[in-house]
C-alpha cells in the first residue's frame, strides 16, 4: 500500500505492507533510526514519536494508519547540524542518559510536556515519563534534565518551542 507520511515537516511517500509498524517504517524506509525498538508490545516506550505533538508508541501503530498527522521524531528537534535544542542540551548538562537507547523517547516526551506545561512539578515530570522505561539511569538525572530545561525555557524571552503544525 502506498501511504504519505509527514515526518519532521517533510512529506514522504512510501510503499509498505500493512503490517509494517510505523516504527519500522521510520527506521527502515525513512532511515530515521533515532526511534528504537525495545519490546514491540507497547510497554517500554523506546519507540516514542510525537503525533501532532503528542507522544505515542510507534510500535503500536501501523504505517498505513499514520498518514494525515504531523509526525515528529528526534531527528526533527535539532535546530541544525551540530546544534542541540534547549532540551537536548539540558539532557547533556545533567547527564540524563547513559546508553542513549531510551533517550530520544525521553526527549520527545519532555518536548511534549513542556510545550503544554512550562512549570511542571517533579510529580508531573515523573508522570510524563512514566511510560518510558530506562534501565541505566534510575531516572534521577532525566527528571533533572527536564526540570532544568523548563527553568531555562522560562528564562527565555521568546516562544520556547516551535509549534508542531498540522499539515
Amino acid at each position, binding site marked *: 500500500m502506498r501511504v504519505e507520511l509527514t515526518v519532521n515537516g517533510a512529506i514522504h511517500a512510501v510503499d509498505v505492507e500493512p503490517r509494517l509498524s510505523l516504527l519500522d517504517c521510520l527506521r527502515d524506509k525513512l532511515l530515521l533510526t533515532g526511534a528504537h525498538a525495545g519490546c514491540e508490545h507497547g510497554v517500554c516506550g523506546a519507540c516514542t514519536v510525537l503525533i501532532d505533538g503528542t507522544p505515542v508508541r510507534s510500535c503500536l501503530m501501523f504505517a498505513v494508519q499514520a498518514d494525515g498527522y504531523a509526525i515528529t521524531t528526534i531527528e526533527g528537534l535539532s535546530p541544525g547540524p551540530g546544534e542541540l535544542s534547549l532540551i537536548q542540551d539540558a539532557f547533556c548538562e545533567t547527564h540524563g542518559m547513559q546508553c*542513549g537507547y531510551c533517550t530520544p523517547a525521553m526527549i520527545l516526551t519532555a518536548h511534549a510536556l513542556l510545550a503544554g506545561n512550562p512549570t511542571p512539578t517533579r510529580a508531573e515530570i515523573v508522570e510524563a515519563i512514566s511510560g518510558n522505561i530506562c534501565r541505566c539511569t534510575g531516572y534521577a538525572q532525566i527528571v533533572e534534565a527536564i526540570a532544568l530545561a523548563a527553568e531555562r525555557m522560562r528564562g527565555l524571552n521568546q516562544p520556547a518551542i516551535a509549534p508542531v503544525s498540522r499539515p
Partner: protein
Amino acid sequence: MSAPSRKFRFVSTDRRVREDRRFVVGKGRFAADIALAATKHVALVTCDHPAARILRIDKTEALALTGVHYVLDGRELAGATSPLLAGLDTPNVPRRPLAVDVARYSGEWVAAVVADTRAIAEDAAELVHVDYEPLPFVLDGEEAYAPGSPLVHEAHGSNVLLDRTFVWGEVERDFAASPHRLAFKVKWGRSSTVPVETFGVVASWDPWREMLDVYASIQMPRFPDQVALALKLPGSAVRVHNDVDVGGSYGVKRGIKHTVLAGHLARRLGFPVRLIEDRLENMRGGDAHGPERNFDIEVAFDDLGVIRSMKMRALDNVGAYAGRSPFQLGKPVSAIVGPYCIKSVQYQAIAVVSNKTTQEAVRAFGQGPTNYAIERTLEEVAWHRGLDRLEVRRRNLIRAEQFPYLIPSGTTYDSGDYHAVIDKVLARADYSALVAERDRLRGQGLLAGIGIAACLEPSGANSTFEPLLNPKNETTTYSEGCRITVDVSGAVTANIHTVSAGQGHETLVGTVVGEVLEIDPDRIRVVRPDSLSSLPSQSPVGSRMAIMLGGAAFHAAQKLKARLIAIAAHDLKIPPERAVYENGDVFDRSAPQTRRSWIELVTIAHRYFHRLPPDTEPGLAFSHIIQVPMGGTLPTPDGRVQIYPCFAFEFHLVLISIDPDLGKPEIRRWLVGHDCGTVINPKIVRGMTMGGIAHGIGAALYEEFAYNGEGQLVAQSFMDYLLPSAHEVPEVEIVHHETPSPHTVFGQKGSGESGYLGAPAAIASAVNDAIRPLGIVVSSLPIKIAQLGDMIADARERIANSE
C-alpha cells in the same frame, strides 16, 4: 602506583559526558542501525517443551515461502562449529547456539530461519514443523541437586556442575567457642538486568579477504577470539567493530551463541546476516537470566552480636547450560565477609543445571545476592540478641585503621572508612528524626520500617575466579590497553579497544589523558579501532574500567609526556631534571623563557629527526597495557585468592511504609553513602549509583522470571516482567565520601555496580523492620505485594486468635 594527594584539574570536576551529544540527537549507532547492503534477517524456531528429544525437523513448508533463503538446524551448525566455551571443566555439558538432538528448556533455539525480512523469517519460523518427544524435566535447584532427579545432560551423570567447599580459618573451633549460633535460609529469585535494547548482531563474511566482520551489541571478554574459536577461524579472521553503541548491558549481553549462529550463516550463505532478538526470543531464549540462588547460612556470634564465624552454602540454579554464570559463585569469595571482621568462613559453592533458561553474568557477578545474604545475617544476629541493627553493624565493621585488611579468603581490602560513611549518612538523614518518622507512620496504622545495608563493591576484576573454580584454567591476566598518538598537527587521539554501553569511557579517557597532559580533555579525540587493530581489552565487566582503562590511559599519557620532556631537554640542551612540563609546553626551570611549545615538540618528533635525542623513534605513539593491580597470583590450593584489588563501599538507609491491608510497600526516603575513592567524573558515578538502585528495586520488589509447574516461563514479556518506571524509583540522596585506593593512578575505585549491590538488601531490611512486630519476616526476593499481603493477614489473624 597512586597519585599524590593534590587537587585535580579535570578529574573529579563536573564535566559533561561527551558521548551524550550523539545520543540526544538520536545518532547513536546501535546494532539494529547497522545497515549493510543485501543483509538478510534471522528469526528463531523455539522449543516449547522444558525438555524434549528432537525427533524430526521438517523445513519444507518454510523453505517454500517466498523470501526465505535458509533454515539452519542444530545438527548442521554443530558439524561446522565448535561448542561454545564453558568456564568450568564440564566437557559433557556442551553448549551450542542451536539445540542438538535434545532441547533443554522452553524457549531454547532449535532452528534459525533466514529471510529477506524479519517478518517473513517469522512467517517461515511458524512453518518449521518439529517433532518432539517430551522428556522428564526438573526446575527447582534443590531438586536438581538431589540424586535421582531427571538429568538435564545425561552424559554428565548428574546435574551438578560445581560443588566445592572452601574452609578458611578455624571454622569449627570458632563455632564451638561462640555462645550463640543461628541457622536460616534466604533466597535470591531469578531476575536479570534486562536492557531495553535486546541483543543484536550483524555478521558479514568477505570470502576474498577471508574476514568476518561483526557488529554486535556486546559486552563480553574474549568475544572476538571465542567467535573465531567456535567458527574454527583464525583469530585474525574475525573483526569485531567496537564503534557500536550498546543499549545497556549490565553484564548480560554475551551474545556468543547469536554471533556464532549469524557468523556461520554469513559464511554459509554469502550475504550479511542480521539477528536482532525480539523481546520474546530475548526473555526465553536469549540466555540472559541472572542468579537464582538459595543460601543456607549458619553464623556464630557472641553476646554483643560480634560474629566470629560464618558458614554459607550457596546453591545457584544456572539453567540448562553454563557459560560464565557459575563463576558468579566464585567472585563473591572476594568479599565473602562483606565489610565485616568475620575471622573464619566456610563457603560451599554449588552450581546446578535445570530445565530453565541459561543464565549469564549479571551486574556484580554474584555479589548482589551474596551481599543480600550477608546483610540478612547481620539482621538476624541483631534480632536474636535484641540489639540495635546499626550498633551490631558498627561492632562488626572493619575499622579505618585496620586497612589494608586481609579477609579469610585471601583477599586484602585496599582502603575504606566505613564508620565515617555511616556517620555521614546518619547525620544527613537526621537519623533520630527518621526513626521518629517511622514511628509516626506506625502510629497512623501503617507498617513502617527502616532499612539498613552496608555493602562492598569489589572492583577491577582479575580473571582468577576462573582457576578458583576450574583449576585447569590457569589464568591470572585481565589486561586493558590504551594507545595515544599525537599527529603532525598536534592533535591528540586516544584509542580504546572495546565497546561501551553508556559508561562514558570516551569521557573517562579524555579526562585522564587531559589530566596527565594538562590539556583540555575536550580536545582529545577518543576513537575505537576494531578488534584487529586493538590492544588487549577484557571489555567493561567487573567494575573495572575506571581502574584499568583509566590506568592504561594514564600510563600511556605519562609515556607521551616523558618523551616530550626528553625531546625538549635535548633540544634545549639542558639536563632533563631542569625540564618542566606545563600545559603541553616544556621550559627550563632556571630560565623559563627558554622553552619549546607543544607544536614545536610535535614537529620535532614527526619531522626533525636531526633534533631528536639519540635512539628515539620518530613520531609520537605510545601504548600501555595494564595488568590488574595486586594480580598475577593463582589461587592457593584451599582457594585463597585476590581477584579484585579495590573495594568501594555503600551504605543505604531507607524508610519504607507498607499498607497493611494491601501489602504494598512504599519507599518514603532513601539515602546512600557511597565511597568509590577518587571520582573521575561525578555525573557518571551518580548515574551508576542511581541506575544500580533502580535495578536493585526491581530485583527486590518487581522482577522475577517465574516458571509454572509445566516448565514454562510465565513472565515472557514486559507485561509480566515488571521493570521499574520513574514512579517506582524514589528520589535518592547520595552522600559522598572518598577513601582513595592506594593501588590506582588517581585513587579511583570502580563504581559500575554501585547501588545494585546494596539496594535489595536495604529494601529487605526495611520490609522486615516493618513486619517483625507481627512476628514475620521475608527471606526471599522479590517481595511480591500479594504474598506480603497474605503473610501480614495470616499474622494478624494469628495474633487476633491468640488474644
